[in-house]
């Protein structure tokens, strides 16, 4: 019988949650790397036993861990992230030039075809790649070196490259998103980059329609339609039907269009999920009700999914990488909260139940569908 493995990164370690295809009973394994922040861990689509994890601490810096046995054992691999060439400056919070400084790896994106190739999105914003299973890392300097780079400024959470989307049908096409610069796309495997932010409007920047400077929180793509992209921006839920060349708002009837994660149903490319958050300064659900919103029309029309989720006195957040879907039938949807709960829905969001309730604050959730 098929199964599911949920990879959970938290503020104090990693957890691996497994179930068979019923997604009814779960085994919780962890913490791995107890006491360390695990911003992200993700499995290779080409080899489900190959996992990568970003492990960091304020004391001891960045580590990358690799597992070749589905998380049973781990090996620390390369952690040398050195910017390529002249480091240069970006703008600091006060508008003064500030040297690029590596802080941590926010996101790891394994290649869809090669388990030894993995991309890392880092703070201060840059894109690195390893082709030797994480032993060594090379920056793709065209990203940080884009002509707009000197004007990028950090968002409240730091100037991080937090989203990496690899186009499964067009090898060499990569989308990334940076807070607070926006979306960039490369068609040559990361050598050169173009900003892809036309149609975004952000009231918090001097020119609300600027080409660069938007606080994009996450973008998502369905592998069957790589020209359709969905975005949760600081405020606004957006979509693009032309591969990111232009965006239009699809917030529709959401109670608030602020939020962090966005994801797409595994089998229905027009079915998308967000978790509305009250505001940029009140990072919790409106009215204390934890609600996932689902649109079956690619946006505009949204329905609240509440069955099994707390509908009073709930003031947790759901971070940008903390939602994922499985590929079973029906599609499973998963998300983790800053309160330490990981919720699962085995029926595409109609009903929910917690897998675990008392983990450290959840930073990331990824799902592997196992044969």
């Amino acid at each position, binding site marked *: 019988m098929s199964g599911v493995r949920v990879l959970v990164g938290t503020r104090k370690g990693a957890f691996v949650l497994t179930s068979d295809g019923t997604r009814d009973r779960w085994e919780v394994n962890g913490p791995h790397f107890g*006491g*360390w922040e695990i911003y992200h861990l993700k499995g290779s689509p080409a080899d489900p036993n190959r996992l990568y994890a970003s492990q960091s601490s*304020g*004391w*001891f*810096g960045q*580590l990358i861990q690799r597992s070749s046995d589905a998380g049973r054992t781990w090996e620390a691999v390369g*952690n*040398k992230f*050195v910017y390529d060439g002249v480091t240069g400056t970006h703008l600091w919070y006060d508008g003064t030039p500030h040297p690029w400084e590596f802080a941590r790896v926010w996101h790891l994106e394994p290649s869809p075809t090669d388990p030894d190739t993995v991309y890392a999105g880092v703070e201060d914003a840059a894109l690195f790649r390893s082709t030797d299973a994480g032993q060594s890392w090379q920056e793709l300097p065209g990203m940080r070196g884009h002509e707009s780079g000197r004007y990028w400024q950090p968002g409240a959470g730091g100037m991080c490259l937090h989203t990496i989307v690899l186009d499964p049908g067009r090898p060499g096409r990569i989308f990334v998103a940076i807070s607070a610069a926006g979306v960039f796309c490369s068609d040559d495997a990361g050598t050169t980059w173009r900003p892809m932010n036309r149609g975004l409007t952000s009231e918090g920047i001097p020119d609300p329609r600027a080409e660069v400077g938007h606080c994009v929180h996450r973008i998502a793509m369905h592998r069957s339609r790589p020209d359709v992209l969905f975005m949760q921006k600081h405020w606004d839920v957006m979509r693009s039907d032309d591969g990111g060349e232009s965006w239009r708002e699809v917030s529709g009837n959401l109670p608030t269009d602020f939020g962090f994660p966005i994801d797409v149903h595994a089998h229905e490319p027009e079915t998308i999920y967000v978790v509305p958050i009250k505001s940029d300064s009140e990072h919790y659900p409106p009215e204390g009700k934890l609600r996932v919103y689902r649109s079956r029309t690619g946006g505009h029309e949204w329905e609240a999914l509440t069955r099994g989720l707390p509908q009073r006195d709930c003031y947790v957040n759901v971070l940008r990488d903390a939602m994922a879907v499985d590929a079973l039938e029906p599609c499973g949807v998963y998300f983790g909260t800053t309160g330490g709960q990981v919720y699962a829905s085995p029926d595409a969001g109609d009903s929910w139940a917690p897998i675990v309730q008392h983990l450290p604050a959840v930073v990331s959730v990824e799902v592997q569908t196992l044969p």
Partner: protein
Amino acid sequence: MIRVVLPAHLRTLARVDGEVTLDVEGPVTQRTVLDALEAGYPMLRGTIRDHVTYRRRAFVRFFACEQDLSHEPPDAPLPAEVVRGAEPFLVVGAMAGG
């Protein structure tokens, strides 16, 4: 034989229990001790000092013989008690937050 005490998280990372003992050739300094430590335990590279600049990470401290040696030059000789193995060289995670 130089004795080194690592903080708990780095002992876990290096998969060692208790003290680490190192052979250090030539002068015994912070630099030569850390060079030997990282040669024996490469997974510690970057966790105590920067990969490129070799500067001590901000929240890591070096103690020995009840002295804070964190701000000593990396090529300064370590105390004689450390050199002859009577006292350990302590790598400490600074008390800062949780």
